[in-house]
């Protein structure tokens, strides 16, 4: 019973297990719900899906199973609807909302978009209906419909469109991720270093017995509790060439956040210069001077860079090489400052290790880091952690 449903979920890469499936069947057998699709939806979701980030995937799988709708290949890579909806509802202004009304409301707009995506099978350019580039349809890039939704356009060409979706490349690295980060966590645990610090609160049995035996009266000893004392400063490349790797970096970030007692993270773009920032949406307004980082965080912090180090060599070596503003000192100077202050540094590079030799900037960066550059594979991560823990 419902085996098709189970395999449908599996094929959508949802982490469902046989045990959970049997639980669902058991619930159905016990008559927890009446004969209603809505109830079944809620029940199967509660029984099978254990992470809210998977809810959207589940919804799509469920819709597909129930209505026999064929899924459009690659729809999630083209446009994650849930993301669009969430972000847009939060950031639209009143006028923009009214503009959407012109097309029959937001729901309608998204509904139509979904339909079109389903109908449309091939790449399209021009014209007035299909999604593609340079048309007058409300969907697609480089278009002129004022109510338009832009998809896949890298620069704002026509300022009157509702929102430029490409901006998501600079969205904050979110740590709400699907399963699969546990492996990373286990690797990161290598970094843990326990030390006894603070007030003595724990009963120390061994010392008590020893001391009691020696002194011949009860001599109770307490000791401070073991705590993880690792401090980590993470500097992450965001945007630009890192787009391909944002997912990997996200998983890493999600894994890291829970593992250390002190974890500070900052973003930079391509190469480290005078400024870093914490919130990508306000990256120009709220920046932190890199020199302040050096002053604020003691040298017992371990510094982990995450970045692909893929850029023009000028961006590293030349003053003024930054693609964003004129930097007075070169990136190399800043990297060297960091490695001078913090003896424990590592650079995690999501690019495959095989191609490092063919990219000049990676070579330069690796040299600056004193060879401490590691790929973001489990094994690479372990090597990095071992180097940091030494």
């Amino acid at each position, binding site marked *: 019973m419902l085996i098709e449903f189970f395999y449908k979920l599996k094929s959508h890469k949802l*982490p469902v297990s046989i045990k959970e499936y049997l639980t669902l069947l058991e619930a159905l057998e016990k008559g*927890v*719900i009446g004969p209603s699709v809505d109830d079944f939806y*809620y029940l199967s979701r509660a029984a099978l899906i*254990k992470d*809210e980030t998977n809810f959207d995937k589940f919804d799509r799988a469920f819709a597909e199973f129930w209505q026999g709708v064929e899924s459009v290949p690659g729809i999630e890579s083209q446009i994650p609807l849930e993301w669009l909806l969430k972000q847009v*509802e939060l950031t639209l202004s009143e006028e923009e909302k009214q503009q959407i009304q012109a097309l029959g409301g937001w729901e309608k707009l998204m509904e139509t978009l979904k339909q079109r995506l389903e109908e449309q099978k091939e790449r399209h350019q021009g014209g007035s209906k299909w999604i593609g580039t340079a048309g007058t349809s409300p969907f697609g890039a480089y278009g002129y419909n004022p109510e338009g939704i832009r998809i896949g356009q890298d620069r704002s060409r026509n300022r009157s469109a509702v929102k430029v979706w490409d901006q998501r490349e600079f969205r904050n690295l979110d740590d709400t991720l699907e399963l699969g980060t546990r492996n990373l966590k286990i690797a990161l645990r290598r970094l843990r270093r326990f030390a006894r610090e603070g007030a003595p609160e724990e*009963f120390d049995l061994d010392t008590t017995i020893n001391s009691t035996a020696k002194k011949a009266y009860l001599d109770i000893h307490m000791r401070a*509790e073991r705590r993880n004392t690792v401090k980590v400063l993470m500097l992450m490349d965001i945007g630009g060439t890192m787009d391909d790797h944002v997912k990997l970096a996200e998983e890493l970030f999600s894994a890291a956040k829970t593992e250390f007692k002190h974890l500070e993270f900052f973003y930079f773009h391509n190469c480290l210069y005078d400024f870093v920032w914490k919130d990508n949406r306000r990256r120009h307004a709220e920046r932190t001077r890199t020199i302040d980082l050096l002053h604020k965080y003691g040298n017992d912090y371990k510094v982990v860079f995450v970045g692909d180090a893929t850029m023009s060599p000028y961006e590293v070596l030349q003053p003024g090489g930054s693609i964003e503003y004129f930097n007075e000192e070169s990136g190399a100077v800043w990297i060297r400052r960091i490695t001078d202050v913090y003896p424990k540094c590592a650079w995690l590079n999501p690019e495959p290790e095989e191609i490092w030799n063919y990219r000049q900037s990676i070579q330069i960066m690796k040299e600056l880091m004193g060879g401490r550059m590691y790929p973001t594979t489990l094994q690479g991560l372990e090597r990095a952690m071992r180097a940091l823990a030494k």
Partner: protein
Amino acid sequence: MRFTGTADYVATEDLMLAVNAAIALQRPLLIKGEPGTGKTMLAVEVAQALGMPLLEWHIKSTTKAQQGLYEYDAVSRLRDSQLGDPRVHDIHHYILKGMLWQAFTADTQVVLLIDEVDKADIEFPNDLLRELDRMEFYVYETRELVKAKHRPIVFITSNNEKELPDAFLRRCFFHYIRFPDKETMQKIIDVHFPNLKKSLLREAMEVFFEMREVPGLKKKPSTSELLDWLKLLLAEDISPEALRSKDRKTIIPPLHGALLKNEQDVHLFERLVFMTRAKGA
């Protein structure tokens, strides 16, 4: 035995279904959701609605799974032995029952709340697998098996600070409490403030949802903060007009400290409000 919400707690349909499924199948129910959406309150309300006693086990970063089962108080025993207390001969005097033990051996079925499970060490949920699955555990000191007389109804809340292991998740039902939409929020407020002036409520809700839309807030105001704020507004007897004041000096909603808990958030909000209102004027 069905849970259908209580007079003080508005439960959405999917939440009720998840609760009832967990009760019927005697599995733990894992509850996640934004802070302040009533995760902890759920267990309290279910216990009240079903007329069962509630046992609460609040988890801290130092909590060990063993503490939920029992603790062996070796120090007292050592002291008693020094003082020649006859109690020392029976080890049972020094075994302190934890929340799970109490829940398992209670005379009636109980509701057990394991609050904020994500605060504990990453291995904590793994150490409770058998206990939650089979509802039994072994006491090594006395060589006895503690088995649940009545399987308790277990609620586990998490704030997503740590990811929970798969093996643990497989044994639970899961429900994510979404942030209530305006309609549900209206119901929630009606439950808490039946006599609130309609106009004040409308204005307050608007300000509240507007505030939630401000991008980049570190901590968005949640349901419990809205309720606190309304309480303050009522206590101070603020008029609905004050919430919509056009006056430059009072562009910030009164008593916004109840909604925004972070200094940077307040600054950001003030800047944004000033900018938008200045543009509108």
